[in-house]
C-alpha cells in the first residue's frame, strides 16, 4: 500500500517572522521529488518544520502522513510514523557511539509502542544488520564504534546519515542538501546508497538542493521550485535543466511578489547563516 505525505498551505515562522508562506506538496511512496531554490528561499525551514524542530512555528496549514496529522506529533513520533530527515548539518553527540545510538533509534522505530526501559532489539541481530548496511555503503566497521558525528569529515557525516536512513527504513525521507560539502565521488556513493534503498523499500524521497549535481545521481520524477517561501513552479526533470542553464532570473521576473519576499528573506537570512556555520 502506497502511503502519501501531504503538505497543504503550510506557513512557518521563526521567532515571529514568517518564512514559509503557504507551501503545497504531495509525495507518494516510491516517488522522487526535488525541491530546488536559491539560498534563503526557505528550503531548510521546510525540512525542519516537517520534522518538528521546536524553533519552527507552524502558523497555518496541515501536514499529513497517510492521513495522520504530523503536526500534532513530537519529532520522535513523526520518525516513528515514517518520516526521516537527513540533516544538512548533522549534530555531534559526544560520547555516544554510532552503534549504541542507532540501536536505540532502530528499536524505537520498529517497536513504536515500546515503553522506556524495555528491551532493545537483540544485539546480535542488530550488529549483523549494521555490518551489512555499512558494507553496502563502503564504510569501515570501526565507524560503528566512533562517537556520533564527532570529528567526522563532511563526507563521513553524510554517509552516517544515509546509514541511519538505511537502518530506520522510513516511508518518506527528506535529504536536506545531502550533497553539500561532498566531492563528486562521495556524492556518487551517497546517492547510490539512497537509490538502492529507495528502490528496495519504495521510499518517497524529497531531495532539497540548490545544485543540480546530486540530481544527476538521484533522478527526480517531480521538481518544485521554492521561491520567497512558496512553491512557484512544479514540473518534471526538465525543470532541473532550465534552472541549470538559466538560473533563477526568470523565476524572479515571473513572480515579482515572491521575489520581493525572497529579497527580504535573503536580508534576514544572511546573519542567521553565519551563526549556523
Amino acid at each position: 500500500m502506497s502511503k502519501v505525505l501531504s503538505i497543504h498551505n503550510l506557513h512557518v515562522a521563526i521567532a515571529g517572522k514568517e518564512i514559509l508562506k503557504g507551501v503545497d506538496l504531495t509525495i507518494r511512496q516510491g516517488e522522487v521529488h526535488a525541491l530546488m531554490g536559491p539560498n534563503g528561499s526557505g528550503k531548510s525551514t521546510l525540512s525542519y518544520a516537517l520534522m518538528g524542530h521546536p524553533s519552527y512555528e507552524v502558523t497555518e496549514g496541515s501536514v499529513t502522513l497517510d492521513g495522520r496529522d504530523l503536526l500534532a506529533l513530537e519529532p520522535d513520533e513523526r520518525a516513528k510514523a515514517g518520516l526521516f530527515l537527513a540533516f544538512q548539518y548533522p549534530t555531534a553527540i559526544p560520547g555516544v557511539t554510532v552503534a549504541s545510538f542507532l540501536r536505540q533509534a532502530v528499536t524505537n522505530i520498529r517497536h513504536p509502542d515500546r515503553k522506556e526501559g524495555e528491551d532493545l532489539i537483540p544485539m546480535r541481530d542488530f550488529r549483523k544488520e549494521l555490518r551489512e548496511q555499512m558494507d553496502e555503503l563502503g564504510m569501515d566497521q570501526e565507524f560503528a564504534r566512533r562517537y556520533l558525528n564527532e570529528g567526522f569529515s563532511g563526507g563521513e557525516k553524510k554517509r552516517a546519515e544515509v546509514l541511519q536512513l538505511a537502518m530506520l527504513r522510513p516511508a518518506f525521507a527528506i535529504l536536506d542538501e545531502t550533497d553539500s560539502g561532498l566531492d563528486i565521488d562521495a556524492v556518487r556513493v551517497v546517492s547510490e546508497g539512497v537509490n538502492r534503498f529507495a528502490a528496495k523499500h519504495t521510499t518517497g524521497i524529497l531531495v532539497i538542493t540548490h545544485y543540480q549535481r546530486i540530481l544527476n545521481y538521484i533522478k527526480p520524477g517531480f521538481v518544485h521550485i521554492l521561491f520567497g517561501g512558496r512553491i512557484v513552479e512544479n514540473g518534471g526533470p526538465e525543470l532541473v535543466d532550465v534552472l541549470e542553464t538559466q538560473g533563477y532570473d526568470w523565476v524572479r521576473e515571473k513572480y515579482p511578489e515572491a521575489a520581493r519576499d525572497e529579497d527580504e528573506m535573503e536580508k534576514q537570512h544572511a546573519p542567521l547563516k553565519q551563526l549556523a556555520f
Partner: protein
Amino acid sequence: MSSASTTTPPAAPGGFTELAFETFLRSRDEPRWLIDRRREAFTLFKAAPWPTSKDEEWRRTDIRGLKLDAFAPPGRREPDAEARAALDPLWQELSTHYATGIAQVNAEATRAADPAKLGGAIFVDLGRAVKESPELLRRFLLTEAVTPREDAFAALHAAFWTGGTLLYVPRGVKVEAPLFSLVGLARDGHVDMDHTLVVLEEGAEATLVRETSGRDRAGAPALHVGAVEIFAGRGARLRFVNIQNWDTSTWHFSRERALVGSDAALQWTVGALGSRLAKVNQEVALTGEGARAQVNGVMFTTGRQHLAYFTRQDHQAPHTTSDLLYKGGLKDRSRIVWKGMIRVEKDAQRTDAYQKDDNLVLSDAARADSIPGLEIEANDVRCTHGATAGRVDEDMIFYARSRGVSKETAIRLIVEGFFANVYDRITLEPVQETLRQAVADKLQLGAATPV
C-alpha cells in the same frame, strides 16, 4: 591551605566535648602512643577556628546547618543484624566483582578479608592494625600525608577516628586481584570517622576500590569525617577508587592526600554521588622524579545536594606528570563546587600537568562553580587547565528525536555520552559500570524533567 583565620576563633561547638573525648578514649583500650596522638589532635580541634563564609574554601559552602553538638563520637556498639543486613546487597555485589574485601558498618568492622587472596599484603581494619601493625601506623597514620593541623575537621578526625582500612603491600609484592572496602551507615548509625591508609612499598602493586554507603536510615542526620592517606613508594603502582555514596542526610567531610614517589604511578578515581553536603580535599603530591598521577572524578548531584571538591596536584620533583579530569552532572536545585590547583615547585622542571573540570547543568535551579588554578614556580613546564559548564544542547535532543529516540532517552544518552571520556580512562570495568548505573539512576530520580 587558606582556611586559617587570624580572628579569634569561635569556640568549637560540640557533642565532641572534653567529656565525650575522655569517654571515647576509655571505651577503646588503645596503646599509649595512640592515646597521646589523639589527645594532641583533640587539643588542636579545640583550638582550630570553625570555618566561616569568610574562608576561601568555605565561601561557597554553607555549613551553618550542621549541628555538631547533635552528634557524638561513635560508641563501641556492635551493629545489629538489621543494620548489617542493609549493607549485605552491596557487599554481595562488590564480592562478585573483586577478589576480597573488608566491611565496616556503623563504625565497627563487620567482615574481614580472605588472607589467601592477599598475596602477602596486609589488608585489615584499622582497629586490628593498631594491635597487629602498630609500627606501620606510628609511622604513616596522620603524620605526613594528612595531619590534624590542616583544619578543624582534620583535627576532629585525628582525635576521634574509628575503624577504617589499612592496606600495606610490601616491597615488590604485586597483588593482582582487586580488593575492596565497604564503609556503611545503616539504621541507627549516625557517625562514621573511618580512615583509609594505603602504603605501597617499592615496586608494589595493588588495586583498592572503596565504597561508602548510607542505607535504610530513614533520613536521620548523619556525619562522616574521614581521611584518606596514600603512600606509593618508588616504582609502585596503585589504582584507588573511592565511590562516595552516602545518603542525602549525611554531612561528608574528607581530607585525602596521596604521596607518589619516584617512578610510581597512581590512578585515583573519585565517584562523588551521595551526601547532603560534602567538602572534600583531594590532593596528589608527586614527590619523586618521574612520578605520575591520573585523577578521574565523576560527580552527580540531585535534589538539594551540595558537593564541594577541592583538588590539588602538587608537583614537587622534576619530570612528574599529573592528569586530572573531573566531570559533573547537576539536577534540580543541587550545586557543585570544584576548585582545582596545579602547583609546580621551583625544582619540578619538565612537569606535565593537566586539569579539566566539565559540568552539565540539567536544571535552571542547579549551579556549578568550576574554578581551575595554577601556581607555577618552575620555568620549563607544560600545564594545561580548563573548566566548562553547559546545558544539554537542544540541537542534540532534536537530532536524536528526529531518529525516533524519545526526549527522555535522548537526554539520558547525551548525559551518558558527556561522562564517556572519563569512564574511558577508568581501567576497571566494574567501576565504570557502577558509576554509569549510579548516574543513570540519579538522572531518573525525581519527577521533574531535566532541561
